[in-house]
């Protein structure tokens, strides 16, 4: 009895001297949370909330005008068993990811290497090369791309010098996706900047030591630059892969939202958009979104798992 009183007293004592979790939170962290509030509201209201409801909606039929109707896994089943457009769009996006990401990274690295030679006017060149990325996918780009890749466009004018009569690249099913891949590669600005920063981190004395040992430029690149740059390559590869999966605007703008011609530029995201805002099948579109999320997650997880075999960290 006495013991229990003491413990009780002790705990009472504890409570009176040490503020509770909640009051501590209030006194110490309140200002912090207050300043975070706009972001928190946005995060929960505009990001987490919609994500959760989209998960729910993916199991429903929902046309916006009438309330959602529970259909179980029907959306997912239809997608995998009875929707040729799902597979067509998946193929387009996969092709885009597989070709645009390596090409873009190689191009960005190449330009970064060229710019990393301590040339004069570097900031200017850096800005110039970054410019295409800023232009993004605007209507102006769509028109520019038509001027370049149409039947009477720049590319064919150039080919005509060699007597080659080219097709209308941008509107022929076999080539139209490639014009968008080229657009993606052309917008190499952000990985280039990151590569450039990575190159700056590599200690110069390594190159000096290597050249004293008689290593040529190519050997230096292979044995020093590339291994030390792998963390940056890895980072860029992940970011660009995710970006490529999410890619929407170029195809939307260039094909006017149609995935023209014959669905050859019907990106997965574009199909999702058509289902949602063209035909008001919000449930099906939500299911498509979750499949995309799972796919991107798988790809990223796979990259992280394999990274230990090829990414070298200094320490």
């Amino acid at each position: 009895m006495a013991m229990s009183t003491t413990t009780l007293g002790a705990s009472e004592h504890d409570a009176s001297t040490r503020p509770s979790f909640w009051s501590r939170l209030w006194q110490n962290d309140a200002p912090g949370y207050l300043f975070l509030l706009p972001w928190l509201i946005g995060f929960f209201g505009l990001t987490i909330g919609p994500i959760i409801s989209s998960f729910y909606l993916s199991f429903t039929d929902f046309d916006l005008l009438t309330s959602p109707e529970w259909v179980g896994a029907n959306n997912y089943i239809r997608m995998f068993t009875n929707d040729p457009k799902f597979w067509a769009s998946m193929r387009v996006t996969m092709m885009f990811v597989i070709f645009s990401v390596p090409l873009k990274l190689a191009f960005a690295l190449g330009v970064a290497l060229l710019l990393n030679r301590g040339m004069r006017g570097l900031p200017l060149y850096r800005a110039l090369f970054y410019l295409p990325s800023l232009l993004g996918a605007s209507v102006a780009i769509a028109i520019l791309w038509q001027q370049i890749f149409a039947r009477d466009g720049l590319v064919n004018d150039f080919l005509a010098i060699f007597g080659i009569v080219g097709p209308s690249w941008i509107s022929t099913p076999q080539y139209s996706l490639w014009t968008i891949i080229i657009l993606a590669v052309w917008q190499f600005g952000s990985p280039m900047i990151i590569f450039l920063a990575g190159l700056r981190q590599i200690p110069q004395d390594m190159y000096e030591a290597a050249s004293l040992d008689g290593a040529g430029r190519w050997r230096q690149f292979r044995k020093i630059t590339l291994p030390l740059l792998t963390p940056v390559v890895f980072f860029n590869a992940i970011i660009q892969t995710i970006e490529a999966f999410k890619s929407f605007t170029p195809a939307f703008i260039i094909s006017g939202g149609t995935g023209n011609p014959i669905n050859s530029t019907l990106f997965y995201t574009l199909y999702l958009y058509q289902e949602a805002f063209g035909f008001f099948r919000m449930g099906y579109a939500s299911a498509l979104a979750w499949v995309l999320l799972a796919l991107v997650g798988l790809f990223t997880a796979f990259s992280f798992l394999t990274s230990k075999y090829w990414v070298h960290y200094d320490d």
Partner: protein
Amino acid sequence: MTFRIDRRSFLLGSTALLAAGAAGINAAWAQASSLRLIFWGGQPRADRTYAVTDLYKEAKGTDVQGEFLAWNDYWAKLATQTAGGNAPDVIQMDYRYIVEYANRNAIAPLDDYVGTQLQLADFDQDQLEGGKVNGKLYGISLGANSVAMLVNTTAFEEAGVTPPTNDWTFDDLRTMGEAFKAANIRGGMKLIADGSYSEPMLNNWIRQKGKELYTADGQLGLDEADMTEWFQLWNGLREAGICVSADEQALDTGPLESTMIVSGKAAMIPANSNQLVAFQALMQDKIDMVGYPRIAAGQGGGHFRKPSMFFSVAGSSANKEAAAEFINFFISDPEAAKVLDVERGIPCLPAMRDVVAPLLNEQNQIALNFVSNLGDLLGPLPPPPPAAAGEIDLSLLRTVGQEVGFGARSAEDGAAYFVAEAKAILERAA
């Protein structure tokens, strides 16, 4: 003070942002003395519309706050607002969506207001019928228009070919096409765009054969044999170099600038009578309009006077009477008619046509004459298309048409696929 928001002004910067915020507040505190209006269109249409809302405010003291978007963005926005129970009072509605919105009570029947707020005694009968769903009036037509073939007469002159008249047939089309090809003007300009996946053109063609694209009970009105014939017809024109090639037609992604007539690849394109003004504004060459080609000499009945767009009242609106009153002003006030011109189509009240007629510019005069004098081209108004018609047009007809055009499918194969898939889509949507 009315606040007007569109995407462009929104992007213009902070002033627009402020306006948007203020408009939001206004909407939230909306009272009976103010109405909200939403419509699709461009800046010129918005200018005309807002001039009428200003007139209305002067006349009746009711503030009408307008909002407009491009066609593609419009339906997503309207559906979202409707889902949120926040739809504007007055909604610009299209023939394609009116059944869907009416069936879901997203728009209200207006029969109760006819004779009181809405004075429709002289209103064109076919336009009134066009706004009915299941016998109830859900939309007031803002103007009639018709499909029309736009003709670049300057190019015809250059080629030394006589432009078509309303009597022309598909046979004439072939003859003209050959002559056009022989003339070889402007680096091989073709006679006509590829219409094989133009839904209005297919519809016009099948109506001349006495069928409809969609029956009154929302089923597909044509069969495999029809579609095969249709695709073969265009294959023939394409191979003969009378219409543009498949890869050129694929450059037309929707905007007027990308159409074959504006890009100078063809001398004719299928379009609508009310679009002549917009097309002429983009072109140096002179353009005119005629009917779609007849399947045989003297065969008519393909065209119809389509309600170009409606005003409907939201089912959730708290101010339905006031909304009906505004719509009545919009269609019957002479000053409003002068401002609106025929930009939304030919007015449906004869009195307003008389007001507008002397003021029309050349292109609008052409359009008015064309729609008023369709003669035997005119057939009955087709039943409103089923809800899935949009998907069949954009997602199926377009793709199959391109597959046939690029040679990925034969005409027969394309026809079989189209009919089977269209039926599946209709069934899924039902």
